[in-house]
């Protein structure tokens, strides 16, 4: 059977134009997916050769298979018997699963956070200070004649971004596609994206703030006395300022190069102020290059449930928001968390050593598709379901456009139909304990 307009549940592009041929519960052909997306489709199509199919529990250093009931009971017990439990992940789950995650965090009086706090968390902090003139990716494809990637390398991180949304598509007002656009990359090294850009500007590491400030001065009509700023000749900065102010419609895609280096949210704050200045002359928008396919959805759901986009604390019975204090990295590094439920996140691979050392000390529950460094440290492992492939899902693309992903395969087990259902079963057990 051929399934058209299937969604790829991998990166923030959320490509929904994939064609998949399924024969006897296995994918026999995939059309339109990138190399990374293809890896995920193949993993699932092969019946998942790496998939975890039964819950696993670690006791006295030994790992053994346990029943679903036993695993879900144990998960509820861990989360209700500790004082500072944290629910973390959700960036590759549906919005419906996030909603249940918030219910659990509220019920147990714990914390909830996602990958967004240590990826584009600083971008959100910058947006909260200045505001963001944004747009949809459809507008980029149809209107934009200037594309700027700042601290982003989509060729490696979002392989179809250039061809589907930004540089190459032939849009309504850009019928010649690539030839109708200027394509600029600003980064600390010449990445694969930098190599194909029409203009590559190499900024010194940790000096983005200085370059943005210089551009702001020029756009506001000021002059620069130095001959070089942040490793970039002033002549080149003037040319960039002119390009920004004379384009018909430009879009700046912001990557982790700005949020993970020195300055963090100050870089974003400064950039958004630059965009405000440029918008006195023309029209410029900003879009964050969100990494996971529903990391934006986590922020959306958490905001409409609690008023805050990430790092929410329910310890006092009502939601509190204090990034830098209640963010997962800070709390783990300070050893403040005493139990954690991680869902589709693998923090042991992506956190600094000090955080992983603490993860290894506390009761850790992970809901994962396959074995990862996190499952190797977990006390309890519950098999996960691929949202958007094995269960339907609503999710938000990187431009905050909500989309629906269809199911086209069954999970390799019958005990649950989705991660949302797994979380509901844990939530019900937590409610039963409170009675």
């Amino acid at each position, binding site marked *: 059977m051929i399934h058209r307009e299937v969604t790829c549940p991998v990166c923030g592009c959320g490509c929904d134009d994939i064609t998949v041929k399924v024969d006897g519960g296995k994918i026999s052909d995939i059309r339109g997916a990138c190399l990374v997306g293809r890896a995920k489709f193949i993993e699932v199509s092969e019946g998942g050769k790496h998939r975890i199919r039964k819950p696993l529990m670690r006791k006295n250093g030994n790992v053994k298979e346990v029943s679903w009931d036993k695993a879900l009971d144990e998960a509820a017990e861990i989360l209700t018997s500790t004082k500072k439990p944290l629910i973390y992940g959700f960036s590759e789950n549906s919005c419906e699963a996030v909603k249940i995650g918030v219910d659990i965090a509220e019920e147990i009086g714990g914390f909830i956070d996602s990958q967004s706090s240590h990826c584009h968390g600083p971008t959100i902090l910058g947006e909260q200070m200045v505001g963001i003139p944004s747009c949809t990716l459809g507008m980029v494809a149809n209107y934009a004649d200037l594309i700027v990637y700042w601290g982003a390398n989509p060729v490696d991180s979002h392989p179809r971004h250039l061809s589907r949304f930004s540089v190459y598509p032939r849009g309504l007002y850009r019928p010649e596609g690539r030839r109708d656009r200027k394509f600029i990359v600003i980064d600390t090294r010449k990445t694969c994206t930098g190599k194909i850009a029409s203009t590559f500007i190499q900024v010194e590491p940790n000096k983005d703030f200085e370059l943005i400030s210089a551009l702001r001065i020029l756009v506001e009509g000021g002059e620069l006395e130095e001959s070089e700023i942040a490793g970039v000749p002033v002549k080149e900065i003037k040319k960039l300022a002119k390009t920004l102010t004379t384009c018909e419609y430009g879009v700046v895609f912001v990557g982790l190069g700005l949020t993970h280096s020195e300055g*963090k949210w100050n870089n974003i704050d400064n950039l958004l102020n630059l965009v405000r200045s440029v918008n006195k002359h023309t029209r410029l928008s900003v879009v964050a290059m969100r990494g996971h396919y529903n990391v934006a959805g986590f922020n959306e759901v958490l905001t409409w449930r609690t008023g805050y986009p990430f790092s929410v604390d329910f310890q006092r019975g009502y939601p509190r928001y204090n990034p830098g204090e209640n*963010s997962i990295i800070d709390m783990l590094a300070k050893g403040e968390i005493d139990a954690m439920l991680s869902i589709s996140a693998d923090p042991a691979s992506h956190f600094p050593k000090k955080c992983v050392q603490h993860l290894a000390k506390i009761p850790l529950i992970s809901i994962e598709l396959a074995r990862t460094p996190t499952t190797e440290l977990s006390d309890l492992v519950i098999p996960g379901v691929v949202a958007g492939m094995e269960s339907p899902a609503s999710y938000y693309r990187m431009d905050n456009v909500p989309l629906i992903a269809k199911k086209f395969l069954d999970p390799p087990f019958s005990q649950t139909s989705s991660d949302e259902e797994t979380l509901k079963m844990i939530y019900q057990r937590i409610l039963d304990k409170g009675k």
Partner: protein
Amino acid sequence: MIPEGLQDYRLFLGLDLKVVLDTGSSTRQGKVMRSGGKITEGEEYKRASTVCYMNVGDMSFLGVFNGDNVELSSEEGSVVLSAEASSSPAGVVFVPKGPWINSIISSETSQSGSPRFKGMTISVSASKGKVKSVDELIGRYRKAVRKNEK
């Protein structure tokens, strides 16, 4: 490979280089991550995540060639990776994200919630050490806990 005697000489001199670390995604590492083979295809995950992409001049200074091992050190610790020449500017190294490089990343977030995955200053030197497997790397955390529990 670098002639044995020359590498010993470099190691004897203890040459190291202060560089700025940039970590991030690579397609190869992303492919292994998404396929679910981080543990079950640990060798492929290791090959994709333990490459230190360096400037050719920096490699020449340290006396290392493609495939030679280098040790990256920060205040958090050190990790051995495999060097590879790239278009990185002098003084900048790129390493794909993963548990290897994260073992030397500082957890300090400057009250932002986000650690310095990019822009940390570290030292790089030639090394005769071995690149650890993902099992060895994660096993180290478990061993540390058991030692503390005793």
